[in-house]
């Protein structure tokens, strides 16, 4: 196995450096400097002199993916770089591999973490925050970061061990469908949250509870308005103005 040449210490260095993958995000080649920065300790172990310079240059090419799903890609790139430095033929070249997976993995990561897990964690934590509990941010961070850190560590490790075959492992878990389930869960939780808030308000103000059903059309109307391109800022301002006016006249 190639692992003889890359020490565990080097792996750990790469792992720590993946946390600043987007540190110098630029419009020219997006995360490319981050990739170079993350892989540099490993490249220095594998190559020297002219070969090292070439390796640096190769890794300066365009790169962009989701920061968490970047871990398995970087891991696999480490593995493929090892193979390359030893002159071992691999089915896929490093450059082709990263070219191929970065966009689809960006899609998976965006859907799973930004679209799925983050709103899910926020919806749960908001129940606690409206209760005035100090634990709300802690709960949010725990729900979000346990899967996040698992992906970073396991992803980099599996990529390193399995090489480009890590794509098969990732595929097995059918992450885009997991993301959809999380989103469905979020929609239900948000329904509950809105009902909870409305109930508390109406009971406090002594308004009959069935009036709370009016919230559903309001939500649908606002949702439609945002879809049509009305900015959230204007919506919040005008809604506040309407609420102030209504309270004053009734």
């Amino acid at each position: 196995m190639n692992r003889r040449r890359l020490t565990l210490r080097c792996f750990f260095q790469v792992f720590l450096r993946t946390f600043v993958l987007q540190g110098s995000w630029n419009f020219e080649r997006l995360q490319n400097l981050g990739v170079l920065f993350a892989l540099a300790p490993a490249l220095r172990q594998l190559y020297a002199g002219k070969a090292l310079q070439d390796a640096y240059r190769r890794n300066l090419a365009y790169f962009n993916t989701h920061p968490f799903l970047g871990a398995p890609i970087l891991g696999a790139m480490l593995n493929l770089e090892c193979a390359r430095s030893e002159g071992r033929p691999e089915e896929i070249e490093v450059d082709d591999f990263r070219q191929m997976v970065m966009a689809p993995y960006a899609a998976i990561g965006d859907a799973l973490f930004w679209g799925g897990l983050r709103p899910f964690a926020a919806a749960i934590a908001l129940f606690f925050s409206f209760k005035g509990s100090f634990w709300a941010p802690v709960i949010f961070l725990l729900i979000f970061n346990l899967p996040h850190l698992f992906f970073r560590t396991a992803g980099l490790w599996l990529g390193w061990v399995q090489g480009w075959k890590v794509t098969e492992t990732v595929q097995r878990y059918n992450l885009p469908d997991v993301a959809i389930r999380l989103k469905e869960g979020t929609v239900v939780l948000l329904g509950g949250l809105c009902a909870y808030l409305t109930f508390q308000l109406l009971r406090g103000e002594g308004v009959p509870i069935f009036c709370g059903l009016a919230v559903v059309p309001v939500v649908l109307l606002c949702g439609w308005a945002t879809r049509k391109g009305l900015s959230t800022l204007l919506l919040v301002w005008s809604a506040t103005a309407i609420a102030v006016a209504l309270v004053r006249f009734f």
Partner: protein
Amino acid sequence: MTIVLARIDSRLIHGQVLEAWVPYCKATCIVVANNEISPVQKIVMQAAVPSKMHVYIDKISEIAEQFYHGKFADERVLLLFSSSHDALEACRLGIPVTRLNLGNMHAGPGKLRYTSTIAMNAEDIDNFQHLTESGVSISVQSVPANRETRFSKLLKRKIPEC
């Protein structure tokens, strides 16, 4: 058969397409028309899409033929190209594109950067001019929440040399 969005995006299937445009357009099917996709890449790309959505990835001529035979008759299609050249070829082969969205076009040697995400060379502009003449309306918008910019307006901008 409706093409709800035809888009040029050098990254093809990625987050902006799946997380922003698919829900916005209520697309049911993603069609990628590209001549250079390897079988492995095809599998990786298909794996990024939720299983309820249909994905077709094929050569431009094949896709055009399937459009002709009405394969996508009851789908809401989101059509993706990777370059202006592919879009022009698709139109010439009869894929019914009336509006074209420019999402990401990467910088490269000899290309000028028109917006932060769009870089074009003379050939690209030429291709788009041909498309405009054949009645396709072209605009730049990377995600639905951003403002849409007409292509003709884009060309009037002063471009810094890069």
